[in-house]
């Protein structure tokens, strides 16, 4: 069931090496610009994608910065 997978995903998290919240915040501006430039963001900032999959608050911060900078022309 899709809902079961969603619950398991939330509870068990990404299951891959990931940044901490502090490291995520430190790297967020660079990561967002790489994403907006269509570059290999995950290769340049390893562990960021896993952290954003596991941490809802940091994922919201990422989406906000991406959308704000993107709206201004990236």
């Amino acid at each position, binding site marked *: *069931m899709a809902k*079961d*997978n969603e*619950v*398991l*995903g*939330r*509870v*068990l*998290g*990404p*299951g*891959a*090496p*990931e*940044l*901490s*919240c*502090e*490291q995520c*915040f430190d*790297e*967020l*501006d*660079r990561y*967002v*610009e790489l994403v907006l430039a269509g570059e290999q963001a995950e290769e*340049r*900032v*390893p*562990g960021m*994608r896993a952290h*954003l*999959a*596991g*941490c*809802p*608050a940091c994922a*919201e*911060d990422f989406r*906000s*910065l991406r*959308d*704000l*900078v993107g709206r201004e022309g990236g």
Partner: protein
Amino acid sequence: MATATMTPPMQMPADPAARDWVGELRAGGAREQAAVEELHALLLKAARFEVGRRGAELAHLRDDHEDLAQQAADDALMAVLRKLSDFRGESRFTTWAYKFALLEAAVKVRHRAWQGREVPLADEGWAALTDPRSAGRGAEEAELFAALREEIERLGARQREVLVAVTLSGVPIDVLAERLGSTRGALYKNLHDARRKLREELAARGFRVDERGED
């Protein structure tokens, strides 16, 4: 937490506009004052953007939106000026500065939205989500959920509290941190350790969980 090697910080900002911002903010006198005012305006724009996109969480507090944005911009300005020497020029200065305003605004909105609301630390509602008898669940899934529920109950009190509140009850981690007198980073470490333990225990019981939870 395990991480791979990251690119070392650059010695000099790569973006000429970035050097200009840092220089202006350290220039002293009228130049510095003008730069600080310009920066505050940018931070306020970012804070308004964040408060605006979270309007639904604060629908009952519409009069407070501008206040929240102003407070977030003020706090972000202090944070940016305090951390100016941390700016490595690996992004545009404005992108770097915006993240402080967005964080301040998001945290303030979450706290305001949860003000006066009880954080369901002891709420057993989570049990429904992991109830192995949930309708439509196959035998294999039911077994996995039964094991998951048992392993959640075996976690230490703090790890279980954080895991259940954040992943099953939808409590924002910043709000939980404030209620528990902790920080987002410290609680996320609790969550990370709880998840690792659950994965290990489920794997030891023969469940395949490697592919679970990937985005």
